[in-house]
């Protein structure tokens, strides 16, 4: 029979992993869309007021820039939420998975060439994320949820609790 503490640990890992996946997805999508939008707009002719204003107006008219901005906001929201319970020294390296995911997606979906050096990097990141992911997500005493007005101290309901371990 798994103990209550064990279940609680599993639940914590599950919701931490879910939030980190959201960070990786929204962060990568945001960077890609923002990059695409900005490249289409092009840099300002000079770094003086008028060209910069023109650049900002053009960027604000780009759908990709807005979608990128929205993705990055969702990334930051996931980041803020996961940090209410998980260690900073756990979340940051674990979220580096995006550096491994982006070349993999590029290779398998866009047929991009990945150099041997990059493959080595992807392998090291995957190993590192796996190692960090196997440590306890939280090593500091938790502030009781009751001290926040997020919700009364109900046990983690709905969305996040469904995920698997790491």
């Amino acid at each position, binding site marked *: 029979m798994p103990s209550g503490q064990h279940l609680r640990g599993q639940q914590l890992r599950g919701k931490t992993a879910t939030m980190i996946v959201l960070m990786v997805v929204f962060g990568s999508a945001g960077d890609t869309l923002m990059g695409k939008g900005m490249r289409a707009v092009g840099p300002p002719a000079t770094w003086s007021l008028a060209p910069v204003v023109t650049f900002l107006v053009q960027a604000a008219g780009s759908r990709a820039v807005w979608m990128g901005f929205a993705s990055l906001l969702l990334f930051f929201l996931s*980041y803020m939420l996961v940090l*209410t*319970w998980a260690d900073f020294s756990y979340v*940051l390296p674990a979220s580096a998975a995006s550096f491994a995911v982006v070349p993999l997606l590029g290779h398998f979906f866009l047929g991009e060439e990945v150099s041997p050096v990059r493959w080595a*990097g992807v392998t090291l990141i995957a190993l590192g994320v796996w190692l*960090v992911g196997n440590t306890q997500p939280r090593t500091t005493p938790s502030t009781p949820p009751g001290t*926040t007005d997020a919700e009364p101290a109900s046990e983690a309901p709905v969305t996040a609790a469904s995920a698997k371990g790491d």
Partner: protein
Amino acid sequence: MQTALFVLLVAVAGTSGEMFVSRAMKSIGEVTSFRPEAIARVVVRALASAWMWAGLGMMALAFFSLLVLLSGANVSFVVPVTALSYVMAALGGRFFLGEHVNANRWLGVCLVCAGVALVWAG
């Protein structure tokens, strides 16, 4: 010399900004409900924290330093800065936030650091 200063700003301001945000969020306590109104309340509480504003200020400083650097020709600084930020995060987590960084986590952080450097360089 000036480039070195901006590289330092990107690394130090970026990492410390994220640590300040982490401190603000830790003080709020674990989020247990993911309903939109509960999340909105967490965001409002976070924005009432001085650590959060200090963190956002440092991150903005890092971002503008990065823009200044990117406007120059040489972007090779991005590799060490990005990779080292993971080691700095582990140090900050240990000494500023009081987290327990065990040997496995250190090893993982070092592998991520080396891996990110290789992905950038490759």
